[in-house]
């Protein structure tokens, strides 16, 4: 009965209720869409990082990353490969030699990271081969092929089949150089990655650097599911005590933080939106109560106790809030579903996004938990907002209330 009365009371002043509901709808819609936008951005960034850049897990010599020392390589690669092949959660792995170099073209020179890969296994771990926009991935050039990023190509005025000279220190500490020819130019959504990373054949690089057979700097792993990362990392860490086994979160702290903390920051934004709506709801309910002083006096006179009066006002406030919120969620979910397929094209600001590794076309996404959390937050907002108007009502004395001219 109280729910029925509360619902009917909302519509006593139709225009006032609709206005506050619309405000709530817009607020919730805005918050939900921003959340979906940010979740989509993070999801895409994570996908790019895992599938193109750092993979799921990396294995190194324990001092390799800290010292950035060419001679800190993994020695017993066969033993490591045996472990990796035995783990069903690992779907593929790739061995790499890495050297920091100076790349020069006819036009200019710049510092780059040169990674030597086995093209056949590398394509099972990363999707860089799918990002080639000009030329081919290690095809079309027989001797010393190189795959470079589009940003680097622009900087150094490189085209397919252009010559690029790479200078570095070899395993003996001697300064040496190799001439490579551009086989393919790739473009990812991370211009910093594109500018800095050059990929060559592992055998070519091994020969030029004099790094002995069976030695590599990095083994990158691909897993069947991201959820299995902690388990695989623990298993490998236990068995490879003299190596460094790092998850994607550990390799890219910023990404790890973003993935974990983004939702918390979004809830702060949601809280601010709800705080603003909170005052609007209180105002609306206070007006409703002040208009009904005489009626409240009558209800108390005929025997409606304080708890029921409180519940009636609380239900009215919560129903008002939830109706607006549900509308906002429905409209939000429809919009999110649309942009989940069509993508939100922000290419006007593409350069800015790609400088930080973000795609300029964002596919919004929202998880069920976030929607549930928003409903709970609205419920709490309605409950707290009902306290002040309820207290006003409960302080009324029936005799005095009945005398008012409503």
């Amino acid at each position, binding site marked *: 009965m109280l729910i029925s009365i509360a619902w009917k009371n909302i519509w006593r002043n139709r225009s006032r209720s609709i206005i506050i509901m619309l405000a709530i709808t817009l607020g919730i819609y805005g918050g939900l869409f921003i959340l979906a936008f940010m979740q989509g951005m993070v999801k895409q960034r994570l996908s790019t990082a895992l599938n193109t850049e750092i993979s799921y897990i990396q294995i190194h010599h324990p001092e390799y990353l800290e010292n950035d020392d060419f001679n800190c390589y993994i020695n017993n690669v066969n033993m490591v490969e045996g472990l990796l092949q035995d783990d069903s959660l690992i779907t593929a792995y790739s061995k790499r030699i890495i050297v920091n170099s100076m790349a020069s073209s006819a036009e200019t020179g710049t510092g780059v990271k040169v990674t030597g890969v086995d093209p056949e296994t590398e394509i099972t771990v990363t999707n860089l081969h799918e990002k080639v926009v000009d030329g081919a991935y290690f095809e079309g050039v027989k001797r010393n092929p190189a795959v470079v990023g589009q940003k680097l190509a622009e900087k150094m005025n490189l085209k397919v089949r252009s010559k690029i000279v790479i200078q570095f220190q070899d395993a003996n500490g001697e300064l040496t150089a190799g001439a490579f020819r551009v086989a393919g130019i790739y473009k990812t959504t991370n211009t910093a990655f594109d500018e800095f990373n050059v990929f060559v054949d592992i055998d070519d690089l091994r020969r030029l650097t004099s790094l002995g057979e069976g030695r590599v700097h990095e083994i990158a792993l691909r897993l069947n599911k991201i959820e299995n990362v902690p388990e695989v990392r623990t298993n490998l860490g236990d068995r490879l005590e003299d190596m460094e086994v790092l998850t994607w979160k550990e390799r890219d702290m910023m990404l790890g933080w973003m993935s974990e903390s983004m939702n918390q920051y979004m809830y702060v934004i949601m809280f601010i939106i709800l705080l603003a709506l909170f005052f609007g709801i209180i105002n609306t309910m206070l007006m409703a109560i002040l208009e009904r002083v005489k009626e409240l006096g009558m209800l108390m006179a*005929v025997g409606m106790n304080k708890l029921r009066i409180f519940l009636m006002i609380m239900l009215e406030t919560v129903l008002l809030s939830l109706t607006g919120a549900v509308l906002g969620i429905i409209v939000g979910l429809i919009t999110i579903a649309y942009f989940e397929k069509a993508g939100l094209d922000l290419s006007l600001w593409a350069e800015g996004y790609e400088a930080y590794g973000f795609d300029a076309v964002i596919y919004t996404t929202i998880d069920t938990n976030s929607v549930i959390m928003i409903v709970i937050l609205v419920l709490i907002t309605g409950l707290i907002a009902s306290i002040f108007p309820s207290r006003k009502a409960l302080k009324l004395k029936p005799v005095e209330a009945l005398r008012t001219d409503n």
Partner: protein
Amino acid sequence: MRVIEIKNLHKVYDGAGVPVHAVNGIDLSFEQGEFAAIVGPSGSGKTTLLNMVGGLDQPTEGEIIVDGTDIGHLKSREMINFRLNNIGFVFQAYNLIPVLTAKENVEFIMHLQGRSKHDRNQRTKELLAAVGLDDRMNSRPNKLSGGQQQRVAVARALASKPKFVLADEPTANLDTKSTENLLDIMEKLNKDENITFIFSTHDARVVAKARRVITIEDGKVVSDKIK
């Protein structure tokens, strides 16, 4: 059977530093089934008396015993519950809940009492039929005339099967025809249900209908006539 016993009732207000004796030593009693009117000029204390008898105000001194309970000294929560189950109210301004239909307004009291759906339905139909509104059950107050609204209010007042009904100027906003109609209905219900009706009124037609007329002046009973 005695329903209400009022003993040495006093109510003193603080009127800007000067005490105002709104009720100044009243002794009265009401039996089951009475149809009584309390009359008196404005400021005589009749509304204050009625408020105290209805448990809406507490006396400064004295007792109001209803069915063995001194209601003048009940705590707020106990008093609300007592009113719900023992006292019916009919107000001058009808005071129906505007978002509920006539049927729902009458049922409302029984909902508060926790009565079953069957009981509520049955009693509501009986009462709305008794007040001549069984064909307007599903109308909201804004679709009813003043007289019709007051008849719904009477039905509501009787819904809880109270010990007595207090009606404060129930005919003040009604035309002649509606007033006569309402009074006939209330008189019939008084006889059929044997529920005590106590009116506070200036209306001569109500006084004419009443079987007992109590006159109050300056907070005291100056006359108490049974016809």
